[in-house]
């Protein structure tokens, strides 16, 4: 069991609690814009947790891609569709659905508490401090880029094809078709 300084532990819990509180605010907000901004807050806190767990590059990508790009696209769409008006605001489902959601939530939380009691496999676990040593040796980008461009090269290339397909698909679906327009 690794020992962490109190300073580290305090901030780890702080960012975790901020993430969970923002997520709760996110699902309870009625206005989509307010919900999206709370979700951005959650994603920033998760980025802070990544940095604290020696994943500096992933933390930076989290801020750039999730908080920066994906959420901005969401905000664009919310504002493009003008979803602020009253008929869209009352959007919580009936009691039956809420009861079902509460039950599913309870089952998932029970599962979590069962899973956190499981011991991790000792034979597979790297010695304490390996991650930070690797970070020192290869740098924040190099430690991710190494396996990405050697062991996982094929998935990486497939991902690029996926992105191309997504771009073409999004343009085709989102395009405004006029009546009588061929194709």
């Amino acid at each position, binding site marked *: 069991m690794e020992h962490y300084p109190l300073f580290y532990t305090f901030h780890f819990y702080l960012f*975790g609690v901020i993430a969970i509180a923002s997520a709760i605010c996110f699902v309870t907000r009625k206005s989509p814009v307010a919900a999206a901004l709370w979700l951005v807050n959650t994603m920033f806190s998760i980025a802070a947790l990544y940095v604290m767990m020696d994943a500096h590059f992933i933390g930076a990508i989290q801020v750039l891609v999730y908080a920066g790009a994906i959420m901005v696209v969401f905000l664009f769409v919310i504002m493009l569709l003008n979803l602020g008006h009253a008929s869209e605001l009352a959007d919580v489902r009936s009691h039956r659905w809420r009861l079902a959601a509460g039950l599913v939530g309870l089952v998932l939380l029970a599962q979590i508490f069962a899973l956190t009691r499981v011991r991790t496999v000792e034979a597979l676990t790297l010695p304490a401090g390996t991650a930070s040593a690797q970070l020192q040796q290869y740098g924040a980008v190099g430690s991710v880029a190494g396996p990405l461009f050697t062991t996982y090269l094929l998935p990486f290339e497939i991902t690029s094809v996926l992105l191309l*397909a997504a771009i073409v698909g999004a343009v085709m*679906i989102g395009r405004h078709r006029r009546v009588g327009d061929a194709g």
Partner: protein
Amino acid sequence: MLAEALFFSAVLFTIGVIGVLTRRNAIIVFMCVELMLNAVNLSFVAFSRAYGVAGQVFVFFVMTVAAAEAAVGLAIIISIFRHRQTVNLQNINLLKG
């Protein structure tokens, strides 16, 4: 910190599931799915500290797929809005038997 990170991840995932089940606005449901993806990424990073850097590479792929999914999904939502003037899932019931 593995247990704590897994705890945070699981609570965030649960909040996402509850959001998907209780909200009717298609965009908010979609954002809840993004929250669930984020929760899973958090547990990947937590495990990557104990079991090697492959977890971080996987987070990278999950983020790429999430970006592609957001682009296509939002295009579908815009397309639906053009046809029906609403994104309320209660009114989008064309496939309901």
